[in-house]
């Protein structure tokens, strides 16, 4: 079952198994005149879970939105530097953001299912991307993969909005899986969920990482420790001054290293709760 859902193209995986799925180089993001992110050089390893941590307003969501060009939707956002997906630059007007977004899916902080049936929540994305296969099968497969099938199999034609928050979030994950992306970006996917739903989503991520590259923003240190393989810590730049909150990347390490033996004093201060 799970093996059939979007295994990354064989050619891509053996040619570049060690190449990072996503890379940023000298990345800067401006909102109008204010600099939100400065000089971010980050490698996101393939088929791993990468956690982005850092205090509020340091640019985690901004960084995440660079990977699927959602910053395009912010009228005065400006991206400088380079972002690469599978080694190919994805900044600039020549890149087809629509195609990119199918390959780099996103799960939002607040569950946002479509005001449609559970079935159509899943089917819509596949349909608009020209999916030609068996739709019923795709819906079931995606829901199973998102560990939601057993709870909704009897009511596929009920509105997605009738589900609980945790179920809605898994529906959103299933919807993302249905278009067979290679990367899944998650912006605080559990912040609106109770501990049980959170645990289910975390199990799900663990299960998905064999086939997908996952980047998750979280404010929950325990969650970052539990689920991620690599952790990147962002911090507001102290030197910027003047109330500006320009985010910089202070440390990227394997998660167990970062949490037990942080290199940067700012990381240590943050993870031990003395900053933020």
């Amino acid at each position, binding site marked *: 079952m799970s093996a059939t859902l979007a295994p990354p193209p064989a050619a891509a995986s053996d040619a570049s198994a060690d190449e990072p799925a996503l890379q940023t180089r000298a990345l800067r993001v401006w909102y109008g005149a204010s600099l939100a992110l400065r000089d971010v050089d980050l490698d996101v390893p393939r088929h791993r879970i990468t956690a982005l941590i850092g205090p509020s307003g340091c640019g985690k969501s901004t960084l995440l939105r660079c990977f699927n060009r959602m910053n395009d939707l912010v*009228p005065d956002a400006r991206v400088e530097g380079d972002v690469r997906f599978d080694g190919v630059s994805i900044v600039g007007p020549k890149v087809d953001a629509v*195609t990119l977004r199918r390959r780099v*899916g996103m799960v939002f902080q607040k569950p*946002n299912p*479509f005001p449609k049936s559970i079935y159509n929540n899943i089917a*819509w*994305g596949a349909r*608009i991307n020209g999916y030609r296969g068996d739709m019923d099968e795709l819906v079931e497969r995606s829901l199973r993969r998102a560990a939601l099938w057993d709870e909704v199999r009897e009511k596929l034609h009920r509105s997605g909005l009738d589900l609980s928050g945790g179920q809605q979030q898994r529906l959103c994950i299933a919807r993302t899986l249905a278009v067979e992306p290679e990367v899944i970006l998650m912006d605080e996917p559990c912040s609106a969920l109770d501990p049980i739903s959170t645990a289910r989503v975390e199990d799900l991520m663990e299960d998905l990482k064999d086939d997908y590259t996952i980047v998750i923003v979280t404010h929950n240190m325990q969650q970052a420790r539990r689920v991620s393989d690599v952790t990147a810590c962002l911090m507001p730049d102290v030197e910027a001054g003047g109330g500006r909150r320009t985010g910089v990347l202070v440390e990227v390490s394997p998660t167990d290293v970062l949490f037990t033996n942080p290199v940067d004093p700012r990381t240590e201060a943050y993870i031990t709760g003395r900053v933020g």
Partner: protein
Amino acid sequence: MSVESAGRFHPRRRSRALAGPVFAAACLLATLTGVLALAVLTLAVVAAAASDGGLIDLLHRLAVNPQSGDPARAGFRVGIVGSAWLLALTALIGIPTGVGAGVFLEEYMPAGRLKGAIQTNIANLAGVPSVVYGILGLAVFARAFGVSGLALGPSLLAGALTLSLLILPTIVVTTQEALRTVPPSLRHAAMALGATRWQVVAGHVLPSALPGILTGTILGLSRVVGETAPLLMVGAAGSLLRPPRGPMDRYSALPVEIYNYAKEPDPAFQAVTAGGILILVALLLSMNAVAIVIRDRFRRRR
């Protein structure tokens, strides 16, 4: 009063307690003004219409008879058919244009000076008196600035085009407002799946905004049924004996005929006029009712 504490607070509970009910009473009075006025009007009209004999008989006669100089045989058939034509044609022309303009302005046009100018212009158009639209329609559609091949003359089409212009600002503005109520999270969800802008708009934004668009549109259309002045300008005929057969035909409209009967000196026409008003009001109320039903149905489906 043990809870009352002296000191720097002067609660003035008595006058504050009074202020609420006084305000509520004033608002109630304001509400009743409208209701009372409508009730008195309806009663007066019904009384005038009934003075002729049976009210139902009168309405039936008025609905099937064409125009006549004899109050006993006068009716509104030509006007009712004309108004129905106007309504259908205006809906056909005005709704796609207005909704299209609203979608373009809200979903596609980048914010900027040009958009601001267009917005202001549309807002101003909504306040232009309807006679002015009549003059515009006369010059542009009926006479086509004197280009004889294009002039539509006093045809249904010229009237419908004029009324379309009249309701366009309303439809554009309500469409934009309805689109603005669609939460950004819905757009983001669709975008993040790799939807193009058109797919987002067609698949999610428009369906979500549809109840609002429809309500505004139907309320806009009910103006079409009641408008008189612009139709007089573009040549709705006062006395026609047969209803129009096509968009290029000559026509009359219900409110125009009511206006003509009201001008008749013979007091026997008062019942005819009143009956026509009742038919018009019934039409408007049923259109509003349809708007409400549509809105509620869509709301429940969410």
